[in-house]
C-alpha cells in the first residue's frame, strides 16, 4: 500500500488537489450542486480530458504532440458535414471521423518514427496541414449535428452526466486492460528508456507508431465530443486545446520526458484545469484578472509537484530531471 502511494505520488497529489477544487466549486456555485450544473461542468472537462488522453499517449513515448488540437478541429469540421441524416449515414460518418483522426496520428507517427523527425517539429508542421484542411471544410463556423445523438451523449443518465460515464468506460474497458498487456508495458518502457526497451527485445518502432495512432484517435474522439456539445463545426479551436492538453498532462503527474504517469492522471489534470476556469467564472474576480489568477494557481500546483528537486544533493542529478 505504502509502495503504491509512493510510486503514484504525483497522481495522489493531483487527485487531492482536484477533490478540494471540486468541493469548493460545487459549494460556491450560485445554483448549488444540481444535475444541470454537474453536466455542464462534466462536458467541459471531458473535452479537455479526451484531448489530454491523446497528448498522454504521445508524451508517454517521449513525443510532445502539437497537432492534437488541429486533429480536433479537423474531425470537428468533418463531423459537422457527416453526422446528419439517416442513422446508417451517421454511423458511417462516425467511423469516418474516427478513421481520419487515426490517420492523422499515423501520419505523425510515420514522420517521427521512420522519418526520424523530432516530434515537436513534425507535429508543428502537420498541425498546420490539419488546420488548413479544417478551414477548407468549414471556412466559417457552421454545419449541424444530429440533435438526438448530441443530446444522448451530452446530457445525463439517471442524474449522472453521460460524459463521466464515457470516461469511466474508457478507463475500465480500455485503459486498465491495456495496461495489463505487453503493449501497455512497452509504451512505458520505451518512454523511460528506449535503449533498455530495445535491448529487452521490444519492437520499439512499431510500439511508438501505435502510440501516435492512439494519440490521433483520441484527438478525433475529442473533436467528436466538441461537435456534440456545440453541434457545429469550427476550424479555429485548435491552439487553445493543444496548449491546455500539455498543461493537463503535466498537472496530472505525467513526465514530459516520457515513461511516467497514467491515463488516469491525464484525466485528473484536465479536470483540475477546467475546474479552475469554472471557479474563476463565479469567483467574482474582475474578468481581466482571471487569467492572471488562473495562471498563478497552475504555476503553484506544478511547482509543488516538482518540489523534490530541491532535495537533490548531487548537482549532476538535477540535469536528469
Amino acid at each position, binding site marked *: 500500500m505504502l*509502495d503504491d502511494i509512493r510510486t503514484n505520488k504525483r497522481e495522489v497529489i493531483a487527485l487531492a488537489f482536484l477533490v478540494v477544487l471540486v468541493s469548493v466549486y460545487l459549494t460556491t456555485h450560485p445554483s448549488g450542486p444540481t444535475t444541470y450544473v454537474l453536466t455542464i461542468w462534466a462536458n467541459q472537462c471531458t473535452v479537455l480530458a479526451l484531448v489530454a488522453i491523446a497528448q498522454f499517449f504521445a508524451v508517454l513515448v517521449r513525443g510532445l504532440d502539437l497537432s492534437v488540437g488541429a486533429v480536433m478541429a479537423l474531425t470537428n469540421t468533418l463531423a459537422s458535414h457527416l453526422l446528419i441524416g439517416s442513422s446508417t449515414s451517421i454511423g458511417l460518418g462516425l467511423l469516418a471521423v474516427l478513421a481520419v483522426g487515426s490517420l492523422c496520428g499515423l501520419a505523425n507517427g510515420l514522420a517521427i518514427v521512420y522519418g526520424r523527425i523530432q516530434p515537436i517539429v513534425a507535429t508543428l508542421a502537420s498541425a498546420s496541414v490539419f488546420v488548413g484542411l479544417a478551414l477548407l471544410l468549414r471556412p466559417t463556423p457552421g454545419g449541424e449535428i444530429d440533435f438526438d445523438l448530441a443530446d444522448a451523449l451530452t446530457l445525463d443518465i439517471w442524474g449522472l452526466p453521460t460524459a463521466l460515464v464515457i470516461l469511466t468506460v474508457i478507463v475500465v474497458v480500455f485503459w486498465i486492460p491495456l495496461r495489463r498487456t*505487453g503493449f501497455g508495458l512497452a509504451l512505458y518502457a520505451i518512454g*523511460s528508456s528506449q535503449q533498455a526497451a530495445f535491448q*529487452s*527485445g521490444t519492437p520499439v518502432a512499431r510500439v511508438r507508431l501505435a502510440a501516435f495512432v492512439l494519440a490521433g484517435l483520441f484527438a478525433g474522439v475529442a473533436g467528436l465530443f466538441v461537435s456534440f456539445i456545440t453541434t457545429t463545426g469550427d476550424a479555429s479551436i485548435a491552439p487553445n486545446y493543444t496548449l491546455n492538453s500539455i498543461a493537463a498532462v503535466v498537472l496530472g503527474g505525467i513526465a514530459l520526458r516520457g515513461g511516467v504517469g497514467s491515463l488516469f492522471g491525464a484525466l485528473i489534470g484536465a479536470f483540475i484545469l477546467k475546474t479552475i476556469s469554472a471557479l474563476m467564472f463565479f469567483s467574482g474576480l474582475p474578468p481581466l484578472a482571471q487569467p492572471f489568477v488562473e495562471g498563478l494557481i497552475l504555476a503553484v500546483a506544478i511547482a509543488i509537484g516538482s518540489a523534490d528537486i530541491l532535495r537533490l*544533493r*548531487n*548537482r549532476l542529478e538535477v540535469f536528469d530531471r
Partner: protein
Amino acid sequence: MSDGKRELIRFEEVTKAYGATLALKKVSFTCQAGEVRAVLGENGAGKSTLMKLMSGVIQPTLGKIYVDGQPVRLESPGAARDLGIVCMFQELSLVPDLSVRDNILLGAKEVGMGRLSKGNLTRARAILDRIEGAHIPMKRKVADLSLPERQQVEIAKAICRAPRLLILDEATSALNASVVQKVFGLVRDLRDQGTGILFISHRFHEVDDLADSISVFRNGEHVDTFQKGKHSYSEIIAKMIGQSLTELFPPRLSPIPDGAPLLKVDDLSFGDTLRGVSLEVRPGEVLGLGGLDGQGQMVLVQALFGLLKKTGGQISENGHPLQLKSPRAAKAPPTGIALVPEDRKTEGLIPELSIRENMELAALGRHPFGLTDLDNGIDPDLFTRFTSEMELVCRNFDQPVSDLSGGNQQKVALTKWLALQPRCLLLADPTRGIDVKTKTQIYRLIRQLAAEGVAIILLSTDYEELIHLCDSVHVFYDGAVRQVLEGPELTAENIIAASLNVNSVPVQAAQGHPAHA
C-alpha cells in the same frame, strides 16, 4: 565439434566497423552448448562489440553468423531472443521507471504484445530468492533499487527467459562474493542442463572459478581460445595486452614525494554513499582509487569537484579549508582542481563543437565576468603543448570532436583541463575503451605531470593501472576506504580481496584456486 559438444553459434570472419574504426576485425569464433566460455580482453578489445552482435543490438559490417549451423541475421534483440540468445548487459537493460515485475515481463517471449502472463514471475521470484534477492519486492520501482539489487534483477530477468545461449557481460561487477557464488551455482546448473554460457569478466579469480575454456581478444581480434589451465595468469595477460607490462607503463620520472600534502580530506561523508573517508595527496603523488563500481570512489571525486551539496567532513588545500560550492569554485585559481570525467562523450566533451571550442570551454568563467572575456588568460600554446605531447591526430582545431576516434577524444578532454594548469588533477577512468597506444601516451603524460608537481588522483577499474601507475591505492568498499595499499602490498590479489571486502586471498588464487569469501 571435436569434443562432441554441439555448436550453438558460430562467427565467420565477422568485421564490425564504426566509420573508420574497426571494432572487430575478421573474427571467427564458436560457442558450444553446455560450456562456460570466458571472454577476456582489455577495455576496447572488442568484447562488447562481440556481445552486441550476438544479441542483435548491432549488425556486422561483413561476415556471417550461424546459429545451429544455419546462417542467420540477428536484426534486433527480439530476433536473437527468439533464437534463444539472451544477454545480460553491462550497461543495465532495466527500465528505471518500471517496477521489478514489469521489467521481468518486458519483452519476454511468452508475453509479446498480448496479456501479461504470470508464469515468468514465479520463476523469476525463485531465481531472485536463490541469489540472495529474497528481500527485493516485485512492486518496487527499479530506480529505487541499489546497484547490486539491480544486477540481481537483471540476472533473474535474463535467466527466467530460459536461454540456450546466455551472455553475461560483467554481470556480477557490483555483487559481493557470497552472492557471486550463488549466481555461479545457478550458472553451473544451467550449463549442466545444456545452456551455452559466455562470460565476460575482468576478475581473474571469477574466470578461474567458473570458466571451462577461455577466449582472448585484443584490438578487435580473436587472439586465442584454450582450455582453462593451459596457460598461466601472466601468459594470459601477455596475450591480452600483446606486450609486456613494462612496455605499457613508463617508468617513474621522479621519486615518491614526501612533502606536505596539497589536498587533505577529513572524514568526508555524503548520505550513505560515502562514509567518513580521509586521505591526503602530495604534489607529485599519484593516488589511486580502486574498488568495484559504485563503492563511493566516484562520489569522492564528485565531492572534490564541488558537485555535491551538504557533504559532511572537511576538504582543505595547503591547510586552508575549501568551500567547494560548484565546479566553478573548484577550478578557479588558486584552488585549481580539475576533473576529467568518466564518460567523455556526455560529460567530458560537447561532440558537436570543434576541438578548439571544447578546449576553451573549461577556461570560461574562471574570473568575475569571465564569460565576456574570451581570452581568459589562457595561453593557446598550452593547448598545442599537450596535444603534441599526446600526439593528437586531427586535421586542425576547427574539426568537430565527434569526428575523432575515442582515444583522440580523450586527448582533447585531457588537454582542455591541463591547459588550466591545475594543481590537483582528478582522473576518472581516463583510459576506458581506448586503444593500447593511446593508453601508453596517457600514462606517460601522467608520469610527467606528477614529475612537474601536480597532485593526481586516479580512479580506475583497471588493476594494472592502479598497480603500475599509483604510489598508493585506496580501495573502496560500501562507501568507505577498505584498505590502503602501497609498496609491495600493491598487488592484484590484494586489490581484489579488498574490493570484495574479504580479508586475504591465497596468493595462488589467480593461478588455480577459487577465492571463497
